[in-house]
């Protein structure tokens, strides 16, 4: 398999980024939903620490991924696919990029507003984006939360569409993203 994308198959880099980040993001969504309801404890602090670090990892990866996406051709969708479905598919794909930037950035804003900076695996401490402020912390927490719900919805749509292509349409859409 080629590193770069071709006309009918994603390349190794795109596949690695897709599945690697899918695991990372779904893991962060599940962990995030779980940790916010825990009472204050060492476990909660630990989970928040991981959530922040891996969230920063997503932000770094998506910068690279966007660059890769913009400098690669993308495998064409099936020719016989209705136009609205082609548009819906591309919109879902681009919305993922919006989420992949918006989720970590709002997370970073929350942690800045809370006065609890983020260390990236003990290497560097991220600068605060805003000065500590309780109202802004609550505001960005709500945005982060609703973005998470929105992202979960688009992931479900994306997975549903992939399965529909594979099992009902029996085309090569899902196979194009498999190694």
């Amino acid at each position, binding site marked *: 398999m080629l590193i770069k994308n071709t006309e009918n198959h994603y390349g190794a880099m795109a596949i690695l980024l897709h599945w690697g980040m899918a695991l990372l993001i779904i893991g962060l969504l599940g962990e995030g939903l779980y940790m916010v309801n825990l009472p204050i404890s060492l476990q909660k602090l630990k989970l928040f620490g991981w959530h922040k670090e891996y969230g920063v990892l997503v932000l770094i990866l998506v910068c690279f991924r966007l660059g890769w996406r913009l400098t690669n051709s993308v495998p064409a969708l099936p020719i016989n696919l209705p136009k609205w479905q082609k548009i819906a598919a591309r919109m879902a794909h681009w919305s993922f990029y919006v989420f992949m930037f918006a989720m970590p950035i709002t997370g970073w804003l929350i942690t800045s*507003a809370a006065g609890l900076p983020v*260390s990236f695996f003990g290497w560097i401490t991220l600068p605060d984006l805003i000065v500590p402020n309780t109202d802004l912390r609550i505001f960005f927490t709500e945005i982060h939360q609703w973005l998470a719900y929105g992202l979960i919805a688009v992931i479900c749509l994306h997975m549903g569409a992939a399965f529909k292509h594979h099992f009902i349409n029996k085309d090569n859409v899902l196979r194009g993203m498999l190694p």
Partner: protein
Amino acid sequence: MSQYFKKIFAIVIIILPILSFADVSVWQLIPEKSSLIFTATQNNAPVSGKFKKFAGDIHFDPAQLKASHVRIVIDMSSVSTDYADVADTLKTAEWFNVVSFPQAVFTAENFTQTGNHSYQANGTLTIRDKTVPVVMIFTLEGFSQTTARAKGSAMLKRLAFEVGQGEWQKTDNVQDEVQVQFTVAAIKK
């Protein structure tokens, strides 16, 4: 006559040190211009808080370091952090336990000059029911006949004071070292 001089001489010898001790300036702390900030490490990143209320009994004179002595009393329930949950947690029994131990006390008696305007004080700090020797360094940024401003710091280990009990004794997520930084502004009484 020589007997008379001897008496005076003896009295002067005895009284001089007492006079010089009594002469050490007494300072009134100005709360609005003073601050007491601590910085701990959570998940490898800093987290800061402050104590809003503290009072001082300050007897200090750079010319009479031996006779200088300071006692600062900190109201532990005045702890404040940007994210209120952190301060609320610090007030609980596992941390400062402000219900049982409402005050922390810092005393310093042993001052030495380490530079032009810099000093070191060896003292003790009591948090909860633990009293631990503490080395504090500070610089006198302004010192006149009527006003004084000192800025300094000390490095503490929270576990020496049993701050953070039970599962919080682990230092992976909340490190043992805590940096304390203070500014004390005062006027002469």
